Every structure is written in C-alpha cells, then in structure tokens.
C-alpha cells in the first residue's frame, strides 16, 4: 500500500520533468510552434463559428439560444482540452508498440502510463483550452448564478476533464490488441466532444440513453448545464444527475485504470 502511495505521489513530478523536455524541444521550431498554437486556438473556434452561423439562420436550436449552446460547448471543450493537454499523447500507444519504444519505457523506473502520457507533451494545446474558456465565460455571463450553481459548475468542469481523461485512456487500450486502429478512439473522444456541443435533445432518446449509461459523456456537460440553465431534462431524467458527474468521472477513471492494466498485462513485445 505504501508503495502505491509513493508511486502516486511521485507521478506528477516525473510527469512534469518529461513534459518540460518536450516543451523545450517544441520550441526548437519556433515558427511552427507559433502557428500550431494559433491553429489549435482557431481549430475549435471555427466549430463554434459554425454553430453561430447555424443559429444565425434559425435563431435557436431546439429551443436553445446561442449563449446556452456556448455554455454546453465551453464545458465540453474545457473538459476535452484539459484531458488532451495532459494525456492526449496516450493515443500514440500503438505507435510505441509498433516501433518498440514501449519496451524501452517499461524498463525505466517511471510508471508506464506517466511516460506514455507525457510523451510529446504539447503546450500548444493550451490554445484550445483558452478558446473554450472564452466561449464558456461568454455563455456563463448570461446565467442567473446562485451559490449552488457555482458549485455545480465547478464540479462539472473538473469532472468533464476526468471523463474525457478516462475516455482517452480506455479507448487507447484497444491498441494493445490492434496496433494501428488509433482512429477508433476518436469516435468516442472527439465524437463525444462533438455530440455534447449540441443540445442532446436533438438526438433520439436511444442516443441520449447510450450517452448516459454506456459512454456516460452526457455527464460532462449536459446534466449540469440543464441545472445551470434552470431547464427540465427533455427526456425526463432525474434532476440529481446534475451533481452526479464527480462520481461518474471517478468510476470512469477506475475503468480506464483497469483497461490499462489489462492491456499492459496482455502486451507482448513485437520482438524485433
């Protein structure tokens, strides 16, 4: 037990040390770094411009005004942005398996997951978070705030990060079985992000149920936002779902941890 605690306590420092190296290396190509940061900011912003153009045409989407969609969009964007910044590199695990670098990582005295996540740490991903925060702040300025809403909002943002964190890790584990299927995970991570940018009421109820009970990404923004916006759930889900995200996030992280351990145990080197 003491060992486990020690590992957990050491991990952030080890992570930071590796991340710092990658930041320095990315600054070697300064023009690229500047453009990538700008692009990362604009990338997701154009998604929002798309939504704004849509709303410009129809006024509201299924009863949701643009500022309300901004809230949904911002919360989901912050969640995936933070997860992507910290551990987005886990998507590359198949690449490490194929090239054999995973073997080298295994013999180092730092937990494998920490190494894989910190690998190619890209500070430019802050661009995406900045943009999501700006959109969220704009939406939040129209919310009728109360102390309990502030608590729900804070829990939502932290949990959204945890939920996307777990999605990235869990679906990257698929690559322990099929080394070149990294895109499979995108359907759930970026797909989950794209879905939760819209009011989920535009989807059939089967989709909403799947996003609640199977891949519970609806907890990253939909249920807490309904509370912030004083709305009833159009599908009749209970109101206490608004405070469920921390538990969902924790549960998903446990599942992700188990998936990772199973994957690593199953891993046999390519042997070349």
């Amino acid at each position, binding site marked *: 037990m003491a060992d486990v605690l020690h590992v957990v306590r050491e991990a952030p420092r080890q992570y930071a040390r590796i991340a710092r190296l990658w930041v320095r290396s990315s600054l070697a190509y300064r023009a690229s770094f500047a453009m990538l940061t700008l692009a990362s900011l604009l990338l997701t912003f*154009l998604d929002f411009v*798309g939504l704004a153009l*849509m709303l410009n045409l129809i006024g509201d*989407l299924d009863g949701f005004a643009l500022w309300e969609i901004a809230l949904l969009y911002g919360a989901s964007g912050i969640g995936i942005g933070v997860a992507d910044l910290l551990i987005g590199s886990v998507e590359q695990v198949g690449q490490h398996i194929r090239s054999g670098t995973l073997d080298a990582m295994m013999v180092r005295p730092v937990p494998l997951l920490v190494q894989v996540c910190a690998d190619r740490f890209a500070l430019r991903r802050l661009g995406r978070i900045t943009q999501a925060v700006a959109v969220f702040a704009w939406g939040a300025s129209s919310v009728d705030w109360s102390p309990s809403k502030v608590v729900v909002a804070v829990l939502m943002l932290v949990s959204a990060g945890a939920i996307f964190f777990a999605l990235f890790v869990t679906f990257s584990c698929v690559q322990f079985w099929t080394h070149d*299927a990294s895109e499979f995970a995108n359907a759930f991570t970026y797909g989950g992000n794209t879905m939760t940018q819209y009011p989920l009421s*535009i989807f059939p109820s089967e989709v909403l149920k799947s996003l609640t009970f199977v891949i519970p990404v609806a907890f990253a923004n939909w249920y807490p936002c309904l509370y912030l916006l004083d709305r009833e759930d159009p599908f009749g889900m209970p109101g206490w779902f608004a405070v469920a995200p921390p538990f969902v996030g924790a549960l998903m992280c446990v599942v992700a941890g188990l998936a990772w351990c199973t994957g690593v145990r199953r891993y046999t080197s390519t042997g070349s």
Partner: protein
Amino acid sequence: MLYVAIATRGFRRYSTYRAATLAGIFTNCVFGVIYSYAYLALWEQRPDAGGYDAVDAVTYVWIGQALLMTVALWGGGTTDDLAERVRTGDVAVDLYRPVGLVQWYLAADLGRATYHFLTRGLAPTVVGFFVFDIVLPGSAIAAVAFLVSLVLAVVTSFAIRFLVASSAFWLMDQSGVKMLSGLAAMFLSGMVLPLVIFPEPLRSIALSLPWASYLQTPADIWLGKRVGIDLLAGLGLQVVWIVLLLGICQVVVSAATRKVVVQGG
C-alpha cells in the same frame, strides 16, 4: 506507364493498414450520424435553407464523410512524406529522379486517393444509404460529373498540400502551416457547415475559392443542384484553380531546388 506504377504503389502502401481503415470507417460513420441529427434539427426549423431540403442536407453530411479522407481534407497523404524527406534531406534523392517532383507525388497521391475512395468513401456512403435514406445522383450524367469533379477535387487538394509541404524547404518543418491550411480547408470547403447556407457575402467568396472544390462543388453535382451550364461552370472553376495552383507548385519547386543546392554546400 511510370505514373501508373507510382500510383499503384501509393494504393498498396495505404491498403496495408486494414485495422486502421476499419477504425476510420467506424469513426466516419459516428460523425455522419452526429451531423445528420444536427442538420435535421436545423432543416426542421428552416426546411429550405440554402436551397436544400432535409434529405439533401443529410446526403451532404454523408458525402462529406466520404470525401474527408479521399481528398485528404485535413492534409496528409503523400505530401507528408515529401515534407519529412525535406527535413531529413532525403529529398535530394527525389530531385535526382528523371521525373518532376510534382508529377511523382501527384501520381502517388492519386493512388492513395483511389484507395481511400474505395474504402473510406464507399463504406460510409452505403451506411448513410441504409440508415438515413440518402439520395443517389439523379442521372448518369450527374454520377459521371460527380466522379470527374471528385478527381479535380483531389488534384486541387494535392496542389495545396504540396505547397504546404514545400514550406518545409524554408521552415524545416511543415506542421504549423499544415494545421493552418487544414483549418482553412475545413471551414471553406463546407465541412463545418455547407457553404450554401453561409450568409452573404461570405457565401459567394467561399464558393469562388479553391476549397469549395473539396466538397461543396462535388456535393452540389451529386445532389443535382448544378446542371447544364452551372455544372460546366463548376467544373470549369475547379480546372482554373488547378492550373493556377499547379503552376505555383512548379515555381516553388524551382525556387526550392536552388535553396537545396545552397543547403547541401
């Protein structure tokens, strides 16, 4: 004949990764479903937006998913190899070849596009057809014209990607330019939202730029929104951009060649 051989290698190279292809098709379908519902919600509130009806809009979504990889909308494809070879210096070998740099990579990219069209293009279209009842081209002319327009789209996209990769001759690394170019392509091709429902004057501007070639023009031909003189005008604009862009590619190559000589000492 040589170019066919290069294209065949391009095709084979991409067909090696079967699991990756399946995973990609799955992802295309998931996004197809998401955007279909979003567009259905939009067209329910404005049933004639952009001159499309709801069925046209959903068809547009699935054509978009099918063309995403075929035209390499995000960048990538064989031009990534070029950029990498510029960075490592291997491009010197390419310049020795008795074939132009542009022609060589274009042939390989057409091979890649053929593979992506047959897998990541056809599969989502079939799924869209069965799940969302998308419409097929109304006439044989529309179907043939769509294919012609698609080839033109791939060449247009190639020319732009080639220019992006060439930036590595000066910057050593194409990744920043590539991502910015991908952004422009994403937005101005109509992938984020069909160009036809953009507000004026953004709509007219976007429709006259080369990126409209990637998705909006082929999709409009498929949907029968462009017939007769309109159809020819659409294809004509695609050709004009190709001539212009490939011309610039040649100029850049000759400028870059001089640069390589300087670097090589």
